[in-house]
């Protein structure tokens, strides 16, 4: 279960006053380390399956735990 959490601090004129935005997974707050993935080519299908695999494996090797796809990962 991934949820976005917003701590309910006491609101003031500048906001809630707490650093309250983070992800919870299965109820536990996590430190998200990730990347934004934009299309690897404007012409779909040019990146091979192996290329996709290397991309994801590289993210895993860099200890990332989140990828944000700016497009459907094709």
């Amino acid at each position: 279960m991934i949820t976005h959490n917003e701590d309910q601090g006491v609101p003031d004129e500048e906001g809630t006053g707490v650093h309250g935005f983070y992800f919870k997974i299965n109820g536990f707050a996590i430190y998200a380390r990730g990347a934004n993935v934009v299309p690897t080519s404007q012409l779909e299908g040019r990146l091979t399956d192996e290329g996709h695999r290397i991309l994801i494996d590289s993210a895993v090797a860099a200890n990332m735990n989140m990828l944000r796809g700016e497009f459907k990962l094709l």
Partner: protein
Amino acid sequence: MTDLQDAGIIMDPYYNNNFLDQRHVWMGEDRVKANGTSCYSSQRRRRLKDEYMIPNLEVRSRTWIYETHFRLDNQNQVLQSVSSKRRGAEWTNEGAHFQRQRNYALVVEGIKMGASVSINGIPSGNVTDQFLRYIFPLSQSMLRSNLTNLNSLSIAFDPEIDTHGRFMACSGGWDWAPYSMAAEKSCSSRRVLSFGIFKPIYVVEMNDVAVVNVVPKIRYKGDPTIEYLKDGKDFELVVEVHLLCQGGNIDAVENSETAEVLIRASFMPDVVIRVKHAHRRREVTNSSTPILIVSLTKQISQDAISLWWPHGIGNQTLYTIRVAYQDKSSATLTSWVRQKVGKQLPCQIMFFIRFLSGFVLKNSFCGQGSDQLH
């Protein structure tokens, strides 16, 4: 363009000015306008000379057609591709185990976009959305049954086809790509810059009823925003099974005493649902044939499945759910359709992310090839 490059008709469009110099090949020479139209990249207009202006996509005059031939071998039910110009496409047979009458359907997993599909010269329909799967039933009258049993499939990318569907959001619009101006009022419809077949196309042998989609979810029964989830807590499995009924005999399936959906997974005993008594609804799809959606909610016993965690925190446990449709009165059993599900499938259930926090370290991957178009 990738297919044209593979065929040796054009050179690498990402290299130097090849993309522009060769545009007459893929756009068609006759009606290319050099400038004066609205669908240009504004950055290119400033930077490039007139001869390198990108032509308005509305003036593509060339229709590209992919053609191949295939045989439906009734003896061993193997579909053989005779010749295929498609790169990376596998013509496979994923037919049902058995049936009384041979029905076939052409399944198009992904075409971008604005293409008409014809079997033996008979139009089957248009593909107007990149992200939808299209299923075209093949009637016996469309298929050749002579000695050669040779059928032709053609997919024509006619620029006149009006498209209103969605497509990958990288068809220009940023500074690094030719701009298709897909949403501009000056363009009468969504003409995309790149197009082609990007996912498999295959023929399946199907019964009167086919399982065309399975949507499994595993839900936590408590409030995930205030409770820690632990293995062994209370969960429920929610499965939606999408049934395509050939010939529009949905009523017969709904009222049948013997029509059943089978669900099999390692974490629970087999489940048999009678369609007549199940929660169900109809949905009209792009193929104009309504889909019957049968829903099931099933409690999952404690400790039967494990939680899914992101990399570095725990295991990414996924489970396979297998679904089939059977009708004992007509001795029908479809193939088993498999789908993976996690106890927390991140992209399908309760994705409440609305704002990225400062804790997210972000990088950007940029395609190397795209840089060449600057």
